[in-house]
């Protein structure tokens, strides 16, 4: 009897030991969004079946669910969050905090998910507060006031835990705010440093890239989670458009560090290096897209790179030890630049700014590739991302800056008779070459995940969750979820079985083999 009990305990432990977690927005510090589990693979994915659906009854989710402790932790818009039982999808606890009166902001009040450290979960609330929750109960452990929503700041980002710090960036560059990347103590919520994404008096050289005091309203929000390289102890984070958005008359100069990648020391928040993808942006070409850390072979040598499919239509690879440009190659139609000069600065096409009568630019305001989650598969060596392919006409309208009010001075529209199309792109990070490309009816927007089973999962705006052969781009499986997918998918092993989970609309769905 006793022996049997011991055997049973060992078996249970063995099963648990096989289980895997998903503990960050990017699926690890390197932002690969790759799971090495191969139980679901190219030969059996056609049999993939829904296991459970959690209906949050809220707004459309952008959350990347975290998976650990037998639970799934997900956030929704409007300051909601949930812990779900991995076995049944049942809600174990729910967190909600009403938005304060008069909260404004761009694009609804979305939220991209939790970060975790030990028993603490971290999420941002839209109105400018960072909260730590007890992972067991959802109870609030601390709240940190990050920014004032009344002047136009908002928070949507999934935080990133780097050692003993929680790293976040702001949203709200459309309101003439001044962007930042912050670090908070995991234990107390005390702010440890702030890096301003528009250079001010603390950085005279950077400040000189702004006319007058325009850096004060210079935007550069940092609304998507970055990456972290433990080896060089560096945080990589992308920054958004300068303010006023899309009209640059009152902010002459390059407008550092907007539309840039900034490499920061996590201990101090000091800038190690930067690369500006779009100097003096006038088309809302945010550089906030994913920043996977990938080692690439160039000229027989392995280079530690950081890569990005930028909203401006180009794929980039940079040396992540010094910011040197390695690769810059268009993956969609680009008409605002003609090439790179010797210093790795784009050669800009003049007269591309928005005009009263309208002015065409490619890509349009949404990109290119936008913030939508991407994935790098070490198995295929390819980087996968979606793109909106087309142009827009940028119409200019003028307005003075007023605190807390919309400061976006162009109203781009699609080109009549030429609706934008979409594509899924598989790019070789060492060259920027597109290895395969699948055109879609509309731009796919989320769900990206690659796995050791040779699969690429994506979600689209029509609600399809799709599995491709990651090598060839062939469709192997599809499921109509009934709602647009904008979040990234995750994969994990629970009780020895592989699952794939994704948020579709206001629901979370899980899939497994029968």
């Amino acid at each position, binding site marked *: 009897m006793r022996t049997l009990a011991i055997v049973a305990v060992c078996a249970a432990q063995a099963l648990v030991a096989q289980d895997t977690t998903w503990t960050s927005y990017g699926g690890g510090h390197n932002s690969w969004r790759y799971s090495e589990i191969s139980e679901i693979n190219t030969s059996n994915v056609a049999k993939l079946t829904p296991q459970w659906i959690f209906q949050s009854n809220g707004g459309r989710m952008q959350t990347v669910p975290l998976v650990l402790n037998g639970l799934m932790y997900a956030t929704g818009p*409007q300051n*909601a969050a949930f812990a779900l039982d991995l076995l049944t999808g049942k809600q174990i606890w729910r967190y909600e905090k009403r938005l304060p009166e008069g909260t*404004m902001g761009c694009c609804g009040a979305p939220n991209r998910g939790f970060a975790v450290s030990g028993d603490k979960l971290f999420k941002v609330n839209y109105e400018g507060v960072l909260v730590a929750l007890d992972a067991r109960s959802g109870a609030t452990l601390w709240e940190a006031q990050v920014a004032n929503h009344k002047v136009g700041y908002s928070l949507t980002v999934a935080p990133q835990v780097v050692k003993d710090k929680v790293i976040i960036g702001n949203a709200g560059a459309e309101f003439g705010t001044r962007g930042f990347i912050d670090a908070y103590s995991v234990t107390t919520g005390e702010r440890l440093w702030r890096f301003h994404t528009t250079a001010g008096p603390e950085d005279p050289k950077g400040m000189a890239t702004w006319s007058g005091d325009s850096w004060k309203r210079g935007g550069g929000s940092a609304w998507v989670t970055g990456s972290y390289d433990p080896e060089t102890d560096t945080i990589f984070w992308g920054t958004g458009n300068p303010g006023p958005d899309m009209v640059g008359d009152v902010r002459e100069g390059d407008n550092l560090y907007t539309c840039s990648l900034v490499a920061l020391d996590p201990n101090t928040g000091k800038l190690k290096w930067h690369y500006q993808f779009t100097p003096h942006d006038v088309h809302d070409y945010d550089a906030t897209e994913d920043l996977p850390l990938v080692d690439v072979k160039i000229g027989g040598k392995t280079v530690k790179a950081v890569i990005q499919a930028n909203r401006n239509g180009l794929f980039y690879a940079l040396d992540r030890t010094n910011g040197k440009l390695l690769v810059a190659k268009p993956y969609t139609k680009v008409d605002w630049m003609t090439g790179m000069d010797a210093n790795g600065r784009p050669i800009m096409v003049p007269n591309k700014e928005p005009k009263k009568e309208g002015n065409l630019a490619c890509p349009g305001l949404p990109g290119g590739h936008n913030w939508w989650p991407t994935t790098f598969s070490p198995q295929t060596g390819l980087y996968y991302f979606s793109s909106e392919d087309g142009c827009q006409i940028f119409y200019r309208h003028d307005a003075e800056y007023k605190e807390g009010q919309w400061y976006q001075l162009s*109203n781009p529209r699609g080109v009549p008779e030429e609706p934008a199309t979409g594509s899924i792109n598989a790019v070789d990070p060492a060259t920027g070459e597109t290895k395969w490309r699948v055109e879609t009816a509309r731009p796919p927007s989320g769900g990206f995940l690659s796995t050791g089973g040779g699969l690429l999962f994506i979600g689209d705006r029509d609600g399809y969750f799709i599995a491709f052969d990651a090598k060839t781009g062939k469709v192997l499986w599809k499921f109509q979820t009934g709602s647009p997918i904008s979040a990234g998918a995750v994969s994990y092993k629970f009780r020895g079985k592989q699952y794939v989970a994704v948020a579709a609309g206001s629901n979370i769905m899980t899939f497994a083999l029968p």
Partner: protein
Amino acid sequence: MAQNPNEPHAAPKNPFANDLKAIAEGEEMYRSQCLPCHGTGGGRATAPDLSRGTYGVGDRDEDLYRIIFNGGRVMPAFGGTLREDGVWKLVSYVRTISKPLVEKPTGNAAAGEKVFWEKGKCGQCHRVGFKGAAVGPELTKVGASRSLQYLQTALTDPDKDLGRGFATITVVTKDGKKLQGVQRGYDFFSAQFYDAEGNFHSYFKSDVKELTRAEKSLMPNYSKTLSPAEINDVVTFLYGLGRGGK
């Protein structure tokens, strides 16, 4: 508890009607939330023209409040983000951009109605009230959101401002049968459409020989089959729909 923006929300009177400060705040909201689809006036197919002073959802402040707060078939709900006060302020602003209607149609609405149903066979694709088919855009209240010029152009150059979702789908089945109709759905894998007889079709691309979509209207150019006077009569009939005319 957070407000559920999907829940229908009853609306009392506008507390900010004609309030200048509220109107200014409403203008800011309009620029960020409404302008991308509704534009600054003139009307586009993607969203109704709000500068006309008469609206498909009803003309009272409460009607505008309800559609902004709860959303519509295509329009998202803004109640959760803007809240009660914000939505009222937006309504107050929208009121200020509407111009009084000065257009006077010159045709004969009764004659136009007859042409619409008989010679033009417009009811084969369009619905007005309880009559006609729902293949193309519904026209029951079209006069409330479109100008005379817009309606005139729609009859003589149907491709010019093709409403979203009214493209032409063509399918060639594996046994060589060709089907064509007005788009009801189109995605990476499939298309749904109504043919000219009002029959519904749905196909996966992988199940047919050919499936294509063209940004073209299946509607004929009526300048070829109707006289200018007849077109003017039809325009006059349509212009009266949803604005106290029939």
